[in-house]
């Protein structure tokens, strides 16, 4: 997955990259694998500066799907840190750059939540619900957003 230049660039620009080989670095793998319950390869974790896991990818993915997951993970990490504007930026990047990816509906949902958390304006939730009536209608994320349809601004 990392041989693709776009993946390498994205990883280098947005993360501190750590790689542990499960056989060649047995001691390190034993320590970190146990700590994070990594029982399969590839397992890719996004870990915040406090060492807390924020997102997990298990199994091989093609380039665009992998980038979509990593971008979603950056959004989740920013959201957890309370950086809602940054989180919204990452979530919208998933939905706009990888609209057909498996995580795009989830990203669209959290983009709306992040905007609401950043602004306090419930119109962000109503807009998100309206978007799900046009796009990703048959996903569980559309169901989750459906309760916001009648949400009023402010």
């Amino acid at each position: 997955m990392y041989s693709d230049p776009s993946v390498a660039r994205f990883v280098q620009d947005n993360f501190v990259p750590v790689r542990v080989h499960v056989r060649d670095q047995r001691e390190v793998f034993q320590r970190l694998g146990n700590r994070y319950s990594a029982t399969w390869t590839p397992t890719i974790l996004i870990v915040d500066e406090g060492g807390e896991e924020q997102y997990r990818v298990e199994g091989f993915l093609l380039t665009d799907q992998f980038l979509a997951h990593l971008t979603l993970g950056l959004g989740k990490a920013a959201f957890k840190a309370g950086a809602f504007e940054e989180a919204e930026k990452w979530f919208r990047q998933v939905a706009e750059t990888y609209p057909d990816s498996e995580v795009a509906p989830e990203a669209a949902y959290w983009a709306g939540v992040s905007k609401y958390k950043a602004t306090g304006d419930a119109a962000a939730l109503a807009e998100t619900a309206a978007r799900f009536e046009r796009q990703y209608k048959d996903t569980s994320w559309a169901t989750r957003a459906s309760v916001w349809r009648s949400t009023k601004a402010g």
Partner: protein
Amino acid sequence: MAIGQMTIAWTSDFDKALDQAREKRRPVLLDFSAAPM
């Protein structure tokens, strides 16, 4: 290396990576791999 290509500067020192994460204000990508390195 061709122009525009980039390789990832992997480390296996997780504790040092957490320090760098705090300095750079970006998360750690922790990859458990069985592929040849």
